[in-house]
């Protein structure tokens, strides 16, 4: 909704994502703040925001696939693994520069996504969810048994380097990840305004109607799989150069479900949703990691399992509560809050 007193007089104004000067100002201030965080915030904040970015990239990609196109995907963690190993192997063993390896990792993950998306030509809904569930187990199995990935011993990879600049400190990694995240979010945001994005939404809302309207649904479904898994692959590639040691167990099924939950918490089919969800869930993660060991120390009778167990429980509970009480997520709640503030003191 446009702010009061703003009217669209040209088509270009109607199309613009940012309509008013204050929008531009706020965006610039926000981007500036993001860029400046390493200058004044400590290592912990950098690390936290870097981790949020991994969630954001994954969730934005999955949101294109699930929230916009309506294709359930449970195996995003495995596609992240594909990207991570691709980038790790290309830079460490083939000597390809990181700047090339990053898109290649995304491409390969996307190609894997297309491969497991192919059954979408024959089945949909629950069956497709099962194919992606299978993809998770099959891909991780392959990672565990290929020689080049180091199998269950895992592998080490180098820090990313761009033109001789080695990104080995948390600040440099932060900047890299942040730049990529901002670009990817921007691309996703624009994609949804194009012919492709509209085709995705048409398929989600009613695939038969979409086909009648001339949308080639097979092509667009596969494209959605490619894009969703491309995002996961990019996240994986960045992850590889963030941890510098890879192991198949870093990409369990649980993570894939976690990304799903992030979208649910944030709000499916919105651009703001996955970002908000990622921030909230990562925040919850931090709270779990800080508070629960203390709880465990205070109540030793509950046993040593409390710290690792309460994390999934807290996450699961938050997801469940959102599904029951606010299935449209934070994005919807935020929109309601905003409109009630704008209309105050009137009800609507």
């Amino acid at each position: 909704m446009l702010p009061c007193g703003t009217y669209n007089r040209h088509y270009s104004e109607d199309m613009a994502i940012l309509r008013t000067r204050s929008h531009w100002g706020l965006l610039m201030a926000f981007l500036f703040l993001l860029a400046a965080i390493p200058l004044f915030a400590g290592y912990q904040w950098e690390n936290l925001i870097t981790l949020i970015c991994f969630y954001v990239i994954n969730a934005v990609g999955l949101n294109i696939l699930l929230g916009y196109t309506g294709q359930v995907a449970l195996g995003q963690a495995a596609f992240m693994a594909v990207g991570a190993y691709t980038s790790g192997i290309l830079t460490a063993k083939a000597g390809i520069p990181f700047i090339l390896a990053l898109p290649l990792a995304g491409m390969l993950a996307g190609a894997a996504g297309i491969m497991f998306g192919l059954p979408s030509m024959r089945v949909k809904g629950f069956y497709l969810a099962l194919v992606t569930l299978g993809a998770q187990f099959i891909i991780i199995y392959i990672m565990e048994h290929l020689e080049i990935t180091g199998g269950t011993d895992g592998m080490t990879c180098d820090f990313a380097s761009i033109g001789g600049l080695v990104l080995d400190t948390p600040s440099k990694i932060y900047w890299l990840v942040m730049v990529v995240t901002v670009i990817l979010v921007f691309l996703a945001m624009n994609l949804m305004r194009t012919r492709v994005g509209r085709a995705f939404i048409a398929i989600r809302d009613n695939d038969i109607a979409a086909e009648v309207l001339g949308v080639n649904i097979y092509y667009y479904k596969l494209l959605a799989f490619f894009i969703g898994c491309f995002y996961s692959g990019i996240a994986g590639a960045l992850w590889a150069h963030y941890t510098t040691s890879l192991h198949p167990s870093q990409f369990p099924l649980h993570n894939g479900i976690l990304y799903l939950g992030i979208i649910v918490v944030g709000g499916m089919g919105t651009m703001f949703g996955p970002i908000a969800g990622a921030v909230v869930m990562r925040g919850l993660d931090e709270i779990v990691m800080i508070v629960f060991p203390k709880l465990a120390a205070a109540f030793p009778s509950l046993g040593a399992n409390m710290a690792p167990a309460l994390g999934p429980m807290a996450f699961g509970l938050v997801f469940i509560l959102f599904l029951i009480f606010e299935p449209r997520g934070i994005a919807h709640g935020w929109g309601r809050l905003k409109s009630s503030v704008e209309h105050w003191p009137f009800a609507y």
Partner: protein
Amino acid sequence: MDKFMGLLSNGLAVGGVYACVALGFTLIFKATRVFNFAVGNFVCIGAFLVWTCAVQFHLSMVVSILLGLVGGGALGFLCDRLFVRPMIGQDILSIIIMTLVLSFFLNGLAMLIWGSVPGVYPDYLPRGSLGIGGAAVGTDIIFCFVAALVIAGLIALYFERAKGSLAMRATAEDHQVAQAAGIRVKNISTLVWTVAGAVCAIGGLLLGTIRGIDMYLPEFGLKVVPAVLIGGLESISGAVAGGLIIGVLEKLASGYINPIVGGGIETCFAYIVMIIFIILKPHGLFGLKKIERL
């Protein structure tokens, strides 16, 4: 040949358990159209419940199994009341996600209560082995196979024949029609979740007997999903057949493919078979063929 028979018998035993749990899955699906992805966690919690009663509380095995059954049923009941019922009327996607995050939650719960220390049941079955086709098969494995099949048979019989199950079948057909005929659809949902919880607990007990109890049970139990799909989602006999097929194929793969690829194929072989089935025969062996435009 000995190797083949050994693998076959082991596979049938595990497959019997899969069949049993798969029934729990199919029951819920048939009556309410809900895919219960938390089925693996039901299995895990059921197995641990029996273990707690038997090992930590030193109860006799029979009492423990009964308590495990009650506990599993209670778990199913609670899940239905607390998590599934509020989702009535939402689209299928939300309900799939609900059971997925439910598995997240239950995983944490099991972790909190039992931790990651694996457990073993006390010997409650006569030890020994029988020679079948030249291969020695443990009596416990035979027992598990028979027990799983008996339970599967009882449930199938109830669902197909008994009068009370008519309401269930009507609910499976169409919720609104069933309601119009005076059937309380919500009660049916509670009933199937409770029964499924108990059946999964039995499955957990049998699985625990065969391979020990640990935190990998949920992943193991999740393999009934491929089994159900291969059998055909709506079919009771299909669930049993699918379970047996997956169990046997998995063991055969671990015997004959593992030496080639270097181990571990049983973790994903069920899913490979499942994907092949989805591509070639998406409605499974005994499922209803629905004509659906894509």
